[in-house]
């Protein structure tokens, strides 16, 4: 069944789009993270222009996180103070992101920036997660990698020395507001430019750097994702005007249904298997972009931009 997307100005099959949204929802329900790193590339592979794909992917990411955010909030598994600082940083990062996004789009470098970022980000995070999950698999009693909290560690000492130390009650950590804000800023910036939620980076950062307990981290990140993704969507709608509401809506419906299926399927997997599977998935998408960069292209030429002038 064809569906004409008014901003993308192409016609795609409705069920293809529902399926894409659903796949992202399943990943999100299964692993507890957004799945945007999967959605934006898939949208580009089916022919949606990169700016429209990035601008329209944030809402399905937010939608699949809403369910998780609501149920975690009800179980008191959200540190709202921590989330608020992350979101404040995220708004700032998204604001800086839209300036960068528009600048690169005007210069015609957006597609390359997106491809390179996907390779480096997904590649490094994927490899890190793979090593970590393999280690945990082979020797389950080993302590997880992370910032050593002993006073000798320079990074831990630096974070401790920063001003505005704040006790986050629910998360049971006392830490300066600055690194949390910077973390939120970075995730907001990356999220807007690449059309991803960034949970796959934020969750490890909060666990290993800030030492937020596992029980609180996912709920807090989901609250952060919903609001940061809302901010990036609004900025894209107003400044780049590349948000395709029809595309976003179909993806949202698919992802909400998929998230439920994923959450139900999640009961059949173990924690280590989870992380291993997610690492493979992230690495796979990163590799897909990487292969494009290193192999001799079948066609050296490509049409990157079409604009009606009259």
């Amino acid at each position, binding site marked *: 069944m064809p569906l004409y997307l008014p901003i993308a100005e192409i016609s795609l099959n409705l069920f293809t789009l529902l399926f894409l949204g659903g796949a992202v929802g399943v990943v999100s329900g299964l692993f507890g993270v957004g799945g945007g790193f999967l959605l934006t590339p898939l949208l580009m592979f089916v022919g949606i222009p990169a700016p429209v794909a990035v601008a329209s992917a944030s809402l399905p990411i937010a939608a699949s996180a809403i369910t998780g955010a609501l149920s975690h909030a009800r179980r008191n598994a959200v540190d709202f103070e921590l989330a608020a600082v992350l979101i404040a940083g995220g708004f700032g990062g998204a604001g800086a992101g839209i300036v960068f996004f528009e600048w690169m789009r005007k210069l015609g470098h957006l597609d390359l920036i997106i491809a390179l970022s996907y390779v480096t980000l997904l590649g490094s995070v994927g490899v890190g997660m793979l090593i970590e999950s393999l280690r945990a698999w082979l020797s389950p009693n080993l302590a997880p990698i992370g910032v050593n909290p002993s006073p000798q560690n320079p990074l831990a000492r630096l974070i401790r020395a920063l001003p505005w130390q704040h006790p986050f009650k629910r998360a049971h950590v006392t830490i300066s507001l600055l690194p949390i804000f910077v973390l939120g800023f970075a995730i907001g910036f990356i999220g807007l430019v690449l059309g991803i939620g960034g949970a796959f980076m934020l969750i490890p950062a909060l666990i290993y750097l800030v030492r937020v307990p596992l029980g609180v981290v996912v709920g807090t990140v989901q609250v952060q994702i919903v609001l940061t993704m809302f901010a990036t*969507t609004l900025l894209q709608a107003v400044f780049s005007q590349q948000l395709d509401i029809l595309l976003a809506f179909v993806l949202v419906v698919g992802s909400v249904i998929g998230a439920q299926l994923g959450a139900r399927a999640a009961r059949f997997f173990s924690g280590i298997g989870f992380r291993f599977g997610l690492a493979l998935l992230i690495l796979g998408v990163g590799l897909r972009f990487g292969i494009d960069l290193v192999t001799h292209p079948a066609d050296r030429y490509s049409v990157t931009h079409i604009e009606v002038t009259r």
Partner: protein
Amino acid sequence: MRAWLCLLWGVLMLTAAHAEEVVLTLSTREVAITTNYDGATLTAFGLIERDAATIARSGGYDIVVQVEGPRGTIVLHRKGAFGPLWLTQKRQIFEDTPLFLALLSSRPLSLISDEDVRARLGLGLHYRMGKQPAPLDPGFVSALQRLRREQGALLEDDKAVSMIRPNVFAARLALPANAPPGFYILRASVLSEGVPLKTAEAGFIVRKIGFDAYLTTNARQNPWRYGLMALLLTALVGGLGHFLFRRD
């Protein structure tokens, strides 16, 4: 000398035989893009009018129909090896280029007329691709034609025109879904034995109507409201999903 020749030609045209007249009409003047739009098919009908004074043609008529869509800017990138990486090395901006071109005829153009006549009438996709600034890489020009052909924006069909009667023709245009909204002009040239006789024009418009037009207008003119509407919809669907599938 040249002026004299022109005058002579004009006098000849007035006094000697009348040339054919062509009446052209389209099956539709407006292609409406709605939510389930997946391209459209248009038919142009033409009547070749003759009167008693029209000179007799021993051969039949040949019809060439050109369809030109809205013009715009196309950017092409070329990748090159940068160490082990293949990165975009060069780009070429094609300005004021038709974003849709179709060439419809009843038989291959090379059989209809010779190169000079085709060049003069601009019959051929390469004549219509727009004039570009001088230092132009020929690789980009051929890549533009090849890629736009692959995208369906350049069409050549030498079986799209049929003669219903010896002096009535029908040209069928299959407009792909990615042909941009805007004004399209259709030029039908009538030739006989390689000689151009008459060209008639007709236009049609492709535009979004109804829901799609409403969304596009809002996205451009009320971006804040459009964005907030998207957020509200997402919150509603997400919340609805949460309460429908609630397990705790």
